[in-house]
């Protein structure tokens, strides 16, 4: 090659081609995806919890996607009753699909583990509940008080992890994170694909 113009135009052409195929086209196609009626927008508290989830990098160990049962064991493992679809994510900005399962998938953790007290203690010290866990403790999301004030959410921490004096109280951030986790329920039936809704396929009399 001897011409800069060919280098520049060729380099731009290949990249723009890829941008159109993988960014612009999907953007146009996916913009028509509607939220299923069973999927509710996040509440303010859940959004705060999602923010805490993002801030503390939960995504580096937990995925939020149930994959096709044809070649994975995600459904068999009880992580969901069906593969995830784009409509499950319309309220997610940014996405939290994840690339790693050092810990289990959380797409339906709200259905699988519905107890907020369990989650609070698990976030405070995972090994208090799951001895083999390698999840870090998020004790910085909790306050260590001498006595609980009225309205405080006090954790019932078992022996080796309990403080010698005082009580462990959940902060608003910890409670919001748990609210977000409990909102992760995507086990409603998958919405029918665009154009093949039951109404459209039903024979007209």
């Amino acid at each position, binding site marked *: 090659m001897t*011409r800069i113009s060919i280098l520049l135009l060729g380099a731009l052409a290949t*990249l723009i081609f890829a941008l159109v195929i993988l*960014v612009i086209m999907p953007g146009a196609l996916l913009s028509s995806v509607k939220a299923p009626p069973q999927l509710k927008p996040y509440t303010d508290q859940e959004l705060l919890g999602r923010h805490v989830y993002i801030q503390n990098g939960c995504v580096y160990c937990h995925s939020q996607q149930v994959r096709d049962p044809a070649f994975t*064991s995600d459904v068999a493992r009880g992580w969901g009753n069906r593969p995830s679809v784009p409509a499950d994510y319309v*309220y997610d900005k*940014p996405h939290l699909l994840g690339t790693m399962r050092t810990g289990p998938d959380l797409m339906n953790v709200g259905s699988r583990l519905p107890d907020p007290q369990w989650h609070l203690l698990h976030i405070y010290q995972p090994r208090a509940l799951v001895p083999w866990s*390698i999840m*870090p403790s998020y004790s910085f999301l909790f306050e260590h008080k001498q006595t609980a004030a009225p309205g405080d959410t006090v954790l019932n921490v078992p022996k080796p992890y309990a403080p010698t004096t005082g009580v462990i109280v959940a902060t608003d951030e910890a409670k919001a994170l748990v609210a977000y986790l409990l909102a992760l329920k995507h086990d409603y039936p998958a919405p029918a694909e665009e154009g093949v809704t039951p109404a459209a396929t039903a024979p007209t009399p």
Partner: protein
Amino acid sequence: MAINPSDSKVSPPGKKTVEAATRRDSTIDHSQVRINVAEAARIDRSSRLPVLVGFALAILWLLEGTILGDIASFKFDFPDFLSGQAYLTFGRIRPGHLNAMIYGWASTAMFSVSLWMMPRLCRTPLRWPGVALGGIIIWNIGVYLGIILLLAGVTDGLEWLELDHRTADPLMVIGVAMVGASIWRTLAARNVEHLYVSVWYVAASYPWVALIFIAGNLPIYTGVESAAVNWFYGHNALGLWLTTINLGLIYYLLPKIVGRPIYSYWLSLIGFWGLALFYSLNGMHHLIGGPMPSWMIATSITASILMVIPVVAVGINQHMTIAGRFGALRYSPALTFLVLAAMSYTAVSLQGIMTALVSVNRITHFTHWTIAHSHLGVYMFVTMALFGGIYYILPRLIGREWPSANLIRAHFLLVGLGMVIYVVTLGGGGVLQGLQMLDPSQSFEASVNAARPWLLTRSFAAVLISAGHVVFAAHALMLVLRGRSPVREEPPFFFIRPVLVKHE
């Protein structure tokens, strides 16, 4: 001024033919160009300041990224290690490590490498060196700001795109645009007709990285489209930035050090345009099985398989260039690192193609296999190439040889051995983890326990690699600080003198 003999070895000085060759233009075969030592030194002086500042900042980042990586690694073995403070939690330290290594260490060192290579390849002094220097500094301010915010809990939440889009990212865009402007201005002022392979790779990388970085960081995507853009960016940051600059570096230094031209111009062309076309479409293989339209994932799997064409073309081209001259590895530390990097590029690419196949991906997706794979790429290929480049370039800019051959050997052995342990054990551990996860009769605990011993060997490897980095940084500091000591005449690996060029 002590110059590593490879410059002059290519064409022993004093011969009439050298002078003739020096004057000859390069319209046909760039490898026939004979830049003499004086001209090379003059060109090197034009880029000296930004290149040295970039390397200094990069080596600092290497140490900082190493500390973050070590902390993250030990947190797998001791989950309560440093867990009391939010900024030390795994989910902040780990992206801190990635961003420090990709944008701090590798990218800054790559700015320097490109600013050093481009004037030599264009046979003209670097244009706008002040702009390039400013670009490097602004980029680094952006990365420092972004990582401090990340540790403080301000993140965009997307892997590879964590740095804050309001503060850090605009600085980084300005920085890379300024370095790119200097590169392209130099290219426009070139004194050679023919564009050598390295020029294609280096020059194209700057518009590529600027475009994908802007496209990836726009805060306009939601839901699965956000995932598609995330991995479009993540994969292209590797393919159209980290890979391309370092392939350009290998293409430049490999023939230069062994003293013979690149094996095939046509293979270089196939390698370059094949990579540009196929690599840019690979991203969705990070989402195999995920909630994406299946045509997108199929496109990326197809493009991933097609990557075998440019990868094999580059592999053959570089192997045939060095084949028969492997003896030169014993005398040139730069060549040793670069050859290992070139081989790792082939290895990591073939491994990546294999991982994109659904039959393999169903096991390895979501496991530590991916981490081992990315370290084979970003470390064994990219970082090794950059080490090689720094070993070659720094003495020429400072005018002194590396003080100690033993320190270079220690560096190579520590990081080489550490990385082999890292990739082999963690990659294997990832497969074991994946097999347990694929078997629904096994509890999730089994997949955690399957990975744990290999996470521990990874931490051991991390200690070796960290020691190697300390040796390297200390050695670079010694090289700079030995200002007033007598200039050493011989290169560090002087005990063997291979015949590099046979003159027929």
